[in-house]
């Protein structure tokens, strides 16, 4: 058996790079910067998510969606994350993402032109896993809040019905005030959430977590920030 703890899933890239909506318009994003070199990347006793936040905050235009390993039941204690340290010099964004996933074998990543998705490796071939579920068509009508977009996804998925929640403390999940209407075809829930999030702003990120019996999303319009010098 070949074990690939971390891999660049090129086959998934193109689904997000060039999604064509029902009006025939393309949703194309800025030129990829995954080969851009980072002079130094340091993570001390951090997790994959913390590394991802740090990397994205140091790379303009780098937005991401992160899917935590879900615990079995809502009442279960939190999943203990793997902690590790990295010091990488003059590596590309792609190589740093590889290193993050190699440090925590539970995760894999893939990327579109300006959006990185990191998700549990064990979920990759699971068609029942919520972010992998497929929508033949997603119609969005006059939404002014990301929750309305989540609701549209939940309502337009084929049976069985899925529970979704928006659970977050802090951060800014505000949406453009101009009502947004559009439609997309043949996409996964993950790709749909990428699109909902990108509409918030070019650096907007999302995080998925919770438990198998209570899944929740959080949205961050401005991405994440490096620690500023402070009081």
């Amino acid at each position, binding site marked *: 058996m070949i074990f690939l703890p971390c891999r660049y899933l090129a086959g998934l890239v193109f689904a997000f790079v060039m999604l064509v909506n029902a009006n025939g318009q393309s949703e194309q994003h800025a030129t990829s910067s995954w080969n851009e070199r980072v002079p130094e990347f340091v993570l001390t006793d951090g997790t994959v998510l913390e590394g991802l936040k740090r990397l994205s905050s140091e790379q303009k235009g780098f937005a991401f969606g992160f899917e935590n390993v879900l615990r079995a039941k*809502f*009442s279960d204690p*939190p999943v203990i994350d793997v902690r590790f340290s990295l010091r990488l010099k003059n590596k590309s964004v792609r190589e740093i993402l590889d290193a993050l996933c190699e440090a925590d074998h539970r995760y894999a990543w893939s990327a579109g032109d300006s959006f990185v998705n990191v998700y549990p490796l064990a979920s990759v071939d699971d068609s029942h896993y919520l972010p992998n579920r497929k929508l033949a068509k997603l119609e969005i009508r006059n939404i002014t*809040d990301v*929750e*309305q977009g*989540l*609701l549209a996804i*939940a309502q337009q998925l084929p049976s069985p019905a*899925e*529970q*979704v*929640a*928006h*659970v*977050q*403390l*802090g*951060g*800014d*999940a*505000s949406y453009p005030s101009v009502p947004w209407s559009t439609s997309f075809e043949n996409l996964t829930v993950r790709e749909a959430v990428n699109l909902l999030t990108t509409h918030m702003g070019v650096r907007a*990120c999302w*995080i998925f*977590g*919770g*438990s198998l*019996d*209570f899944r*929740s999303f*959080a*949205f*961050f*319009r*401005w*991405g*994440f*920030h*490096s*620690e*500023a*010098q*402070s*009081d």
Partner: protein
Amino acid sequence: MTGVSPGSSGFATHATGIVYHFNGNTCSVQSRPPLQSNGTGCVGNLAFGATAENFIFVGTDSALANANSYFLRGTPSGGAYTGSSSNSPDAVTLTFVSSLGLEKVSVQTTTQSTTSGDRKLTFTYAPLSCQAAALTQQVTARQFAYATNGALSNTCSLGHGYHYDILYTPYTHPDKAAAPPNINLDGTGVTETFSPTTIACGGITGDGALDANSQFSDHIAVCSTQPIPACSSTNSQVLKVAGYTVRTNSLTITNTGLTYTSQGPTQ
């Protein structure tokens, strides 16, 4: 100061050799350099090329650079610019913006003013073959210090739970004034920390930023398409703008509701 109208940026000379500048809210005076000995009377000119604010913001957040910038136009062209602050640790960075034909001077400080207008920024321009010109701006170095917030209104649209978008207006010291809108503060980091870090109901924490109105939104949501299992925790939330604490809140989060209590500071 004839020939310079209020609200504009300008440069006027007086026969006595004193040079007057009027830039927005600040009027400054410098000695005019003497005429060149070659008798050409060639004297460089330096003026602001955009609104020059009488304040800068304290912090190292890179997004502050735009709000802390001054644009200069020196004539005749081709000369060299300098910039300095009366507070010597301040960092002054100069960049020529070719698309504007203006020199951009960004100031970074980690030291708050003691009193309003106590800091002087000095800019100079030395044309190749003319006498140098100087321009000054008295500013207040404002540090984010506290915030007020709007009312809480539940906007959960998934059927169960709650979702509050809390709009904060940050204020600064020493002036105790709100950061004005539309001064390029958007993108300035708003970071949040929680204690304890474990939060009920699976809450995920994150950061925000100032918007174009120099305000920020904080979202607290426990909102689901299906009933939310029982959960509860009380956490302290610290909000920082550009790295400086502006608010501490106590949040009791449960599946049925939120108890939100501000713990200041209020000024």
